[in-house]
C-alpha cells in the first residue's frame, strides 16, 4: 500500500542555515530519493516552497473565497513530502526513519486510503 511521508520543520530554522549546510542537507534528501527510487519504494515527492507562498481557497455555495497563507498556522510547517510504496506500516516506518527529514524535523506517516473506497 502507499504511504505519504509528510516532513514538518520550522522554516525559519531552515532558512537560517548557512548555504553550505543547505547544500549538504539537500544532497542528503537527493540521495534518499535515489536510494528509495532504486529500491522501488519511491512513487513521488517534492520539497515545497515556504508557507508564505501558499494560497488557501474555499468555495462554499460555489462562491470562491481566497486567503493568502496556509490552511493552518503552526509552529512547524509542511516542508516537503515523499509518496512511497511499502508492504506494511513497519516497512513504511523504516523508510520514514531513514528519511533525512526525521533527523532534522518530524515525519508524519499517513497511509493512503484506496480511491473510491
Amino acid at each position, binding site marked *: 500500500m502507499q*504511504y505519504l511521508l509528510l516532513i514538518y520543520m520550522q522554516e525559519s530554522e531552515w532558512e537560517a542555515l548557512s548555504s553550505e549546510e543547505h547544500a549538504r542537507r539537500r544532497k542528503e534528501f537527493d540521495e534518499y530519493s535515489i536510494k528509495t527510487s532504486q529500491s522501488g519504494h519511491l512513487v513521488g515527492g517534492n520539497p515545497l516552497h515556504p508557507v508564505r507562498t501558499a494560497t488557501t481557497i474555499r468555495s462554499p455555495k460555489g462562491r470562491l473565497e481566497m486567503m493568502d497563507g496556509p490552511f493552518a498556522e503552526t509552529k512547524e510547517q509542511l516542508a516537503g513530502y515523499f509518496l512511497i510504496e511499502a508492504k*506494511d506500516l513497519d516497512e*513504511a516506518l523504516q523508510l520514514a526513519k531513514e528519511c533525512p527529514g526525521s533527523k532534522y524535523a518530524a515525519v508524519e506517516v499517513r497511509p493512503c486510503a484506496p480511491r473510491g473506497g
Partner: protein
Amino acid sequence: MTDPAALRSELDRIYRADSRRILATLIRLLGDFDVAEEALGEAFAAAMEKWPTTGVPGNPYAWLVSTGRFKAIDRIRRDARFIPELASTQEPIALPRPELGEEAPIVDDRLRLIFTCCHPALAAEARVALTLRVICGLSTAEIARAFLIAEATLAQRLHRAKEKIRGAGIPYEVPEASVLPERLDTVLAVIYLVFNEGYAATSGTSLLRSDLCQEAIRLGRLLVELMPEANEANALLGLMLLHDSRRDARTSPTGDLVLLDEQDRSTWDQQAINEGVERVEWALKSGFAGQYAVEGAIAALHAQAPSSDQTDWRQIAALYQYLLNYRPGPVVELNHAVAVAMADGPEEGLRLVDSIAARGGLEGYRWLPVARGELLRRLGCKAEAAEEFRKALGMTTVEGERRLLRRRLQEVGGT
C-alpha cells in the same frame, strides 16, 4: 460422541483452550478483527450443529478455522451482492491477505497478534485494552471495570485501535530480528503494566484487580511458551510470579494492607517462588541483566529471606542502584534509600530520603511520607513520624492502606 451433554462440555473445553488461537489465525487469514470475531462465533455455532452427527473431527482447531473462514467469505460475498459496484468488479472480494491456508503456521498466530496488539504506533492505553480483549479474551465490560473507565470509552478506544491497524497497515507479523528486541520491550511493558495495575491497587475493588495479575501472568506464560529463548520474557514472568507469591499475605483478613516486614511468610506461595527464582536465575545466567531480571533478582532476595532482618539488604540496595540505569527516577531512588536504611540504619536512610524529596518529582506520591514516617518512627521521633503518616493519609483513598496508616499513627501516639 453424540451425547449432547458430553458434546457440549467438549465444545466448552475446546473454546476455553483454543478459541484465542483460532481467533488469531482467523485474524491473519481474514485481515480484520471484527470479521474474524464474528467468524469465530459462527464456527462454534456450526460445530454445535454438525458435530452431533459427524462426531468431533480429528483436528478441531483446523476444522473451526476452516469453517470460520468459509463462513466469513460467504458473508462478505453475500453482503457484496447488495452493493452493486462491489458485486460487479472483476476482482474477487478484496480479502486483504493473499496467503490463505489453514494449516498450522510455523509461527503461532497468537505471537504475531501479540506484536500487532502491542505495536508502538498504537497509543499505550490502546495496546493494553486490545491485548486484554483479543489475546486474553476479556469482554469490554470486564476491561472497563478493571480500569475504572466507562465501557463506551473503552469500546471507542478498541474501535479506533482496530481502525488504525486496518487503515495504517500494521502487519500481523513477528518483527524481523533487527527490531525484535525493542518491539519485544513494548510487549513486555504492556504485560507488566497490566500486572502492576492489578498489583498496585491504586483504586477499585481487590477482586477485579487480582484478576488483572492473573491475566498478566497468563500472558507472560504464553509469551515464554512462544519465545522460550527470550531472557527478558522469562525474567518478567519470574518477577510477576515472585510478586504474586505474596498475594495472600499482602492483605489481612479484614482487608488491611500488610507491609513486607509484617507479612506471615509461611503463607507465601512456595511453588510460585520456586518457579520465579528459577526463571530469574536462568535469565541472569545469560550474562546480560535487563530491567526485569534486576527487578526479579530483588524480588527473589525478598522471597528467599526467612525474615525481614535476615534479608540481604545490602545486595538489594546495590540492585536498586543498578536498576536506576533502566528506570531512572525518584521512585527507584526511594526504594534504594529504604534498602540502605535497612542495611546501614535509619539515619543514613533518612538522609537519602530527604535529599530525594528535596530534588522534587514525588509530590503526591504517598509512599514518600510513608517511608519517611517509618524511618522517623524507628529513630524514635514520634511527633514528626505522626505528621508524615497524616500526610500520607491525605493522599490515598484505598481503604486497606488507610487502615494501615491509621494504625501506624496510633502507634506513634498521634490520632
